[in-house]
């Protein structure tokens, strides 16, 4: 991932985290009993995984340090891409399947609706009233992968996943629910639903991720699954 791509992802992440001005709006299922069929928009999804070190040593050394950091970041991202490719992992498809199944278990009918998958935040417009669809669920995932707060074994790489979720009424785009979920947060995220990472997916050094690719993939799947379940639970 280049500096600009990472910056865009982090900007989107900030928009999803404590800095966001969009308020959290809970769903009131009793008041929305006619909402039975949800059009699930193709989730906004990043072009690839991110392996983020929050306190890169190069940050202290100006532009040269930033370039070195970016190169190291890019190498880690490529490592993660290779691991994902080697496992034929389609995390977005898995996320959609998990989210749909959970919503259906809560009594909703879920219909896939095509949308721009490259968006990093909520859609600007919704398809409008459509036959058989009562609401649209808009999920934007600006970032996923691994994150470590610092260098050293006491601040290991852990899975990282962030998502915004918004449910709008189909006929007038009235917001019925809006919230944000982050698996493994960094810093204070007072208004975001924060999922604590599973301790079994901790890698003291980046080399440990490469040495245990199955566990690394399982960690990302765990982050995506728990985030999908949390979003579905917002509509219970």
């Amino acid at each position, binding site marked *: 991932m280049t500096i600009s791509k990472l910056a865009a992802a982090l900007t989107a992440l900030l928009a999803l985290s404590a800095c966001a001005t*969009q*308020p*959290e*709006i*809970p769903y*009131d299922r*009793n*008041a929305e009993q006619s909402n039975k069929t949800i059009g699930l928009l193709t989730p906004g999804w990043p072009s690839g995984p991110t392996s983020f*070190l*929050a*306190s*890169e*040593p190069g*940050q*202290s050394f100006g532009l040269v340090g930033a370039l070195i950091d970016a190169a190291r970041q890019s190498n880690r991202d490529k490592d993660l891409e290779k691991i994902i490719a080697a496992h034929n992992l389609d995390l977005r498809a898995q996320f959609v399947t998990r989210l749909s199944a959970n919503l259906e278990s809560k009594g909703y009918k879920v219909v896939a609706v095509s949308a721009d998958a490259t968006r990093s935040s909520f859609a600007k417009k919704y398809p409008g009233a459509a036959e058989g669809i009562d609401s649209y669920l808009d999920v934007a995932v600006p970032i996923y992968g691994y*994150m*470590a*707060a*610092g*260098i050293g074994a*006491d*601040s*290991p790489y*852990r899975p990282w996943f962030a998502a915004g979720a918004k449910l709008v009424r189909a006929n007038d785009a*009235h*917001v*019925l629910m809006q*919230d944000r979920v982050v698996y*493994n*947060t*960094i*810093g*204070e*995220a*007072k*208004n*975001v*639903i*924060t*999922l*604590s*990472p599973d*301790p079994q997916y901790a890698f003291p050094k980046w080399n440990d991720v490469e040495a245990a690719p199955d566990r690394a993939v399982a960690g990302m799947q765990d982050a995506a699954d728990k985030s999908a379940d*949390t979003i579905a*639970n917002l509509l219970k």
Partner: protein
Amino acid sequence: MKSPLFLLPVLALAACATKPVPPPMVDLAAVHCESDLALGGATPVLFDPKNGKMTPGLIDGGAPCLAEKAGTRALYRVFTLPAAADSFVIDVRATPWANTILAPRVLMLDGNGRETRSATRADFTFRGQSLSTLLRSHDDERYLVVLSDSEMLGRTVSRIVEGVQTNMVFTPYAAVAYNTGTDRTNVMTLTPTGRVEVTLTPIKPDGK
């Protein structure tokens, strides 16, 4: 005999030692409880029609106790909701208190004290380090009761918290800033007492 001065470093160390934290209260067997909620003396929740407004509360050992039909006991605190014309979001939070946090649940009551709905542990999620549930306001509801969840008392929750702090090093020629990361595990015991925050945030008519 040696001078007693040799004891000074030991005394200094003892003075610096962390005081032991008493075990959290998790048993309500000895607490006097009533079979009905006492709605008198409820705390009014602050409301600003333009911005979110938070009202703090505390459930401590002196809080009223409810003896429930199931035989369980719960400490509680009652809040009164404003009769606002606009819809608002009610955010009920239990916030950490040392290494403990209230095991929360919520009852919503109408003006006659009748229960209209509730929020149980399945409705609470962590937002930051607080346990929170969000509810949309209902016109007929006047009381919000935050209670302890007797089935959760004494259990622990473990949370991994990551952070970054910026440090400065000053040299005769320059000041250098560098970041260090922290990764720690917070373990909190769920208790019948703790700090509570109730925040009301207006919802705009378009729902945004």
